[in-house]
């Protein structure tokens, strides 16, 4: 019954739309543009703040020492504000060794980022240097499969702790890590770039000249703001994951240590220094394990007079709330633009109501209740804004294409996804309905006699 009534209203609303095609088209055009701009902001927002893999609820983070105020102050109020949390979320190498020496946590991982040279063992004969569909090179002279790429050193538990889904293969095991096996997990981006034929799993990858066997391929791009290292947000994604201890063999310096005190020039100096660059995560699934680890921290760091704070995931998220970013600002601005478009829609719907005053008066005179007219106006607005929401893809799609080609700030593309489409459609229809409330109320409260108070057809 309710469905048939709704269908009846939808039919009436459709007819009503056809009655003022010019105004209807204007409403759709206006809402399409603002919805397209909103959708564009949303694509960037979702890329930065969008859903990330579900991390283990038992994850814990340890903040060691007090953060250097200098770094916090340096980045505050800048586009690089997320970097300010680096000094609090990461620890020095000696601190990492202490944190990971307890054997209490169920799982644990250290992680840091560095730049490595990655390539296939030998280019297949006749293969182009720049693979089709690969990331646009920064320079024609710079081949994407030979330039330094972001790589991350992690422990075997890392993938399970952060819920990173692999599209093929599996992460290396603790046993493989302990045996110093030369294994890697690669990102989808790297697999696509270097192995366009889809034969990456099990293949050999040359990393800084050493052969590594690919044991897993990530199912999706890495998050733009990786929860395991939020200070690395916004840059190119990590295309390669290696066992943590491999940094010794590769003689690696981390990409961006936070400077704390002067140190010598060698990597041995770095590893012995207080430079901050390792993120350490631990999984403490029970209250007992948490207590035991807290006691371990007190025993280990207490005598050194170093403050340590053990936080579970919610506490950690509260303590390290992401600072405002340009992406967030543009999301706010584009939401305002969508609402502004809604205001224009309100005016146009009022105009529509004026133009159809006679018709509405006749409906009322023939017995149509106010609620019916009100509902029909809302359905009409919903249909118009839904059409605009669908058409917004005509703006968001080309914009995403342009952005990925011409701006390409990272190798994580922005893309119109079902998720973004549903949000855009929902927001557009929601704003359309909200902005139709007043015009619908005005139209439904029109007195039946208005239509007959003057010659038919005159306003």
């Amino acid at each position, binding site marked *: 019954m309710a469905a048939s009534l709704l269908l009846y209203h939808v039919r009436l609303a459709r007819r009503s739309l056809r009655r003022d095609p010019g105004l209807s088209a204007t409403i759709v055009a206006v809402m399409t543009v603002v919805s397209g701009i909103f959708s564009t902001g949303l694509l960037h927002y979702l890329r930065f703040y969008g859903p990330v893999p579900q991390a283990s609820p038992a994850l814990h983070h340890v903040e060691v020492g007090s953060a250097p105020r200098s770094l916090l102050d340096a980045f505050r109020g800048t586009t690089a504000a997320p970097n300010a949390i680096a000094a609090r979320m990461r620890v020095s190498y000696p601190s990492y060794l202490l944190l990971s020496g307890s054997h209490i946590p169920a799982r644990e991982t250290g992680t840091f980022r560095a730049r490595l040279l990655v390539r296939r063992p030998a280019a297949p004969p006749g293969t182009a240097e720049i693979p089709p569909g690969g990331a646009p090179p920064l320079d024609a002279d710079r081949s994407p499969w030979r330039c330094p790429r972001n790589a991350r050193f992690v422990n075997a538990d890392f993938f399970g702790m952060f819920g990173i889904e692999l599209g093929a293969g599996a992460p290396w095991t603790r046993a493989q890590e302990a045996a110093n096996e030369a294994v890697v997990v690669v990102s989808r981006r790297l697999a696509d770039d270097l192995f366009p034929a889809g034969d990456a799993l099990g293949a050999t990858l040359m990393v800084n*000249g050493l052969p590594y066997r690919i044991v897993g391929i990530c199912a999706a791009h890495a998050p733009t703001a990786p929860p395991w290292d939020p200070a690395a947000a916004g840059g190119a994604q990590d295309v390669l994951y290696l066992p943590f201890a491999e940094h010794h063999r590769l003689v690696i310096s981390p990409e961006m240590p936070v400077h704390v005190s002067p140190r010598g020039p060698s990597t041995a100096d770095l590893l012995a220094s207080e430079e901050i660059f390792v993120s350490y995560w631990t999984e403490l699934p029970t209250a007992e394990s948490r207590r035991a680890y807290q006691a371990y921290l007190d025993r280990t760091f207490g005598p050194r007079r170093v403050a340590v704070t053990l936080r579970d995931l919610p506490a950690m998220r509260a303590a390290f709330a992401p600072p405002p970013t340009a992406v967030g600002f543009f999301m706010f601005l584009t939401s*305002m633009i969508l609402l502004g478009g809604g205001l224009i829609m309100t005016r146009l719907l009022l105009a529509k109501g004026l133009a159809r005053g006679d018709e509405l008066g006749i409906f009322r005179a023939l017995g149509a209740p106010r609620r019916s007219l009100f509902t029909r106006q809302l359905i009409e607005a919903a249909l118009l804004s839904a059409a605009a929401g669908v058409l917004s893809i005509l703006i968001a799609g080309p914009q995403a294409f342009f952005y990925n080609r011409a701006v390409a700030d990272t190798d994580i593309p922005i893309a119109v996804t079902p998720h973004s489409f549903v949000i855009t459609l929902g927001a557009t229809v929601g704003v359309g309905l909200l902005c139709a409330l007043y015009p619908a109320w005005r139209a439904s409260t029109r007195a039946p006699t208005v239509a007959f108070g003057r010659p038919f057809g005159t306003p």
Partner: protein
Amino acid sequence: MMSPSALRLDLGPLLRTLRRQPMVFALVVLEIAAGVATISSLLMAGRWYGRTAERPSGLDEDNLVLVSTYTPGTAGPGHDRASVERSVRAQQEADRRRLRALPDVEAVAPLTITILDDRWCYPTLFAGRQAGASTSSAARLMGWAIYSDEELLAALRLPILAGAGPRPGSADGALVTRSFAEQLFGAAERAPGSTLVSEQSPPTKILGVVADVRMRMPFMPNGLAVAFLFAPSPFDHEARLLVRARPGQRAAVLARARAAFAADRDTRFVEVRAFDSVDSLHHRIGSGLLRMLRVFGAMLGGVVLMGALASTWFLVAQRTRQIGIRRALGATRADMVVYFLLESMVTTALGSALGMMGAFVLYLMMRKVFLEISFDLGLMGLTLLLLSVASILATLIPALRAARIPPGVASRSL
């Protein structure tokens, strides 16, 4: 020119109309306010990106070539970390000699950071200590530490503003930029001879002050505060060599350098490129976003115009009787056009005032995320002008139509 009495005559009905339909006019005012606030914010953000993209490095780039290398080296049986680092550094030094030997090369200087890098790094906290003063009382500064050597000045061709350059063969001391010296010591002349203390390197003496150069992406803070340290740089597989070619010989040097390193491409990464800050990631991001935001601004302007035109048309149509009565009472066609334009100007003025307040609130939000952004009165004025013109245009066409309504229309429904 409209006389005050005529203006009063027009304002009376106008205000009565506003009172009769407050919601409609509130919507118009809000719509204009939203347009002013959002379009001006988009333009200001666009200008910020544009300016950031265009920020010059401060270097004479026309004759500079950048050679970036990544030399792998792995530890294992028979190769400890120290020996690997020695061999990588030896290769990097050999690269430099190879470049120096090329014809038309004037100087080759190593640099740990350049404005073209897409690699991330953090700034360093510096403190300066003038002779006889304590560090604790010294000012502090967040700046960028770059390791180089005595060929820096020849490669970058930077004028020394105070003090002197490094002595040949010396691996000690530092040069700082003018911005750096002024922020830390108050004046460039006070810096030479002072001790520079930092979180990154041991205390060293400031040898001299050079002109400002920007060595980091302009999105980063304090880009002109640079300290060039003449000390062994931290070990890194990556190296950057800045090559100065003889005037007019950059293309030839580029070709020779590429040929010189051609054989290395199979074993390590070597990139030879013209040093051109326009051909950089920050420029691509800045200019690309500027174009996008301009397009969005234009689209929004079009939306405001389209919406205003359509709805004004119907507002005029709604008042056909009112117009007919005024015409019957003696108002001329010109009076009617002036009346509608005045109505539009009142709502536009109210909307603009509200919009400017909104734009300022948005500007306060932008200050938190856009480094050193300023409230651009020029862009605000441009937005107001464009929206006013759009509003007048949107009113003019229906107003002219309204002016043609004959006085007889008013009597049809009487």
